């Protein structure tokens, strides 16, 4: 192993501390007895118990989960289909180039521009039908729009590394297309699909900007709730909530590390 200059290691460790300082401060304050302000007044777990009696927070947590689960399911299906289409069909050079650009567009567009474009789209669609009033539905539509590309890119790289020998073998042995998809393609693709879905799920949980622009009065999510309470003045319940969200993030990251490094 190569020895690092101790100065380099020190800088690296200091940078890591710097990255964790914010979460550490919040976690400590979530056990602070003080209701207003930041003075330390003794240890308590009250804020955690109150959290689970706060209907506004519970409602937001439910919305966040519904939004993430539904949009992830839709985006995973669409993204997987798109990846298969791109990787397994004989599109011409030209259309392939256009499709590639279309695939990268949601990835490179700054999220505030995607949000603004969605505001315009839903504004126009509202003129046609009132189902497009800002709410959970518009948020789901918005989230899927950026999730598709991430799922498709993940699944596509899996398809590329699989190659096509097994496709060919299966078809040579008289598997019809349905049988081939169910018994050969999907089982082989599962790790890629799971990785793509987890990426989409986390992106949805984390998203603030798209939700901020497409949410309605009854579809508050946790990031929106935290943002709103930062503007009003943060209560210790929000510290407790943030700490729990952080712990959930840690579990998700460790779980996906285990899944993808196998």
């Amino acid at each position, binding site marked *: 192993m190569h020895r690092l200059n101790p100065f380099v290691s020190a800088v690296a460790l200091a940078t890591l501390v710097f990255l964790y300082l914010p*979460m550490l*401060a919040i976690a400590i304050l979530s056990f602070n007895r003080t209701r207003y302000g930041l003075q330390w007044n003794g240890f308590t777990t009250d804020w955690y118990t109150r959290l689970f009696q706060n209907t506004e927070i519970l409602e937001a947590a439910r919305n966040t989960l519904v939004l993430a689960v539904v949009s992830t399911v839709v985006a995973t299906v669409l993204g997987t289909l798109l990846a298969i289409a791109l990787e397994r*069909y*004989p599109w011409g050079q030209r259309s392939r180039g256009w499709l590639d650009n279309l695939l990268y567009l949601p990835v490179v567009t700054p999220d505030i521009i995607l949000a603004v474009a969605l505001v315009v789209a839903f504004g126009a669609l509202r003129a046609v039908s009132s189902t497009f009033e800002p709410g959970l539905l518009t948020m789901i539509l918005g989230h899927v729009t950026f999730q598709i590309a991430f799922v498709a890119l993940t699944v596509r790289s899996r398809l590329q590394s699989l190659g096509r020998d097994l496709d060919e073998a299966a078809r040579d042995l008289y598997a019809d297309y349905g049988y081939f998809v169910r018994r050969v393609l999907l089982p082989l693709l599962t790790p890629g699909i799971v990785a793509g879905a987890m990426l989409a799920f986390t992106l949805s949980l984390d998203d603030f900007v798209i939700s901020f622009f497409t949410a309605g009065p009854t579809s508050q999510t946790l990031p929106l709730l935290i943002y709103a309470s930062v503007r009003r003045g943060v209560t210790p319940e929000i510290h407790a909530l943030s700490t729990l969200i952080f712990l959930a993030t840690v579990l998700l990251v460790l779980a996906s590390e285990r899944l993808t490094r196998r």
Partner: protein
Amino acid sequence: MQATPQKPVSSLGKFVVWFGELTTPSRLYRRGLWFLLPAVVWILALLVIPGLALVALSFAERGQYGNVLWHWNLENYSRLLGYGIFGWSPDTIFILLRSIWVAFVTTLICVVLAYPLAFFIATRPARTRYLWLALVIIPFWTNLVIRTYAWQMLLSPEFPFAKVAHALGIIPADGALYPSAFAVYIGMITAFLPFVVMPLFSSVERLDWSLVEAAQDLYSNRVRTFFQGIWPQTLPGLTVGIILTFIPAMGMFVIPDLLGGAKYLLVGNLIQQQFYSSRDYPYGAAVSLGLMILTLFGLAIYRRRGQGVELV
């Protein structure tokens, strides 16, 4: 990556064999379209067409009640360049230039901090290496709003940072370190550092150390070893890291909103104001297009420099 054949192989009359499947071209394309169309229609309907609508909108006018009047003109763009009813003012140009500057400084500091961290992680024993990497990934996935308000707290008067700044005479007693440019930079650097560390790490992990040893054997000093032996080998990862930082940093909205306030507006805040409080969609559309052009410009540079590096 394996090359995908562009055309079905071996013709048998109107039939073709496509990877073991006997079919006709039209049947093959038809099935391909069923796979392709749902996602393509979705992205076209909710991103491409509304994006084009934004272009049209940017040439329109705001009505009295926040509605849109379709009087074609370039008013919004001249406003973007600073010409208003009160004559020329540099305010909006400052906001645009400031966004580029903040993105640039953030990227630079992130790169400087990412090198030690990437090398530190890459030189850990294989057993613990991915745990160290997970330590960088966890803040990356932690909600940005949470991390940003945490910095608000850490920079408030009760915490040591503000006390030290006060002792140094930078801020008055009981003053906070936010909202300020400094706070925006702190927030941005912590938000984007993982974006540089992760791709850089993947380059550092594959580093050919024999070149470094050769340089040292030939009495090259540390600086020269780094710039001629190490730096060129990390360029692919570095390019991805820079792109993943610079472009989203320009359009960032949460961090300047919570840590910069009215003192340090960036282009993201300007867009948000138009679509939220002042309901001036046409002007907001023009500002968005300005940001999109900056983004595409950044990507064009990336395309030229970072050929063959995947973004995701």
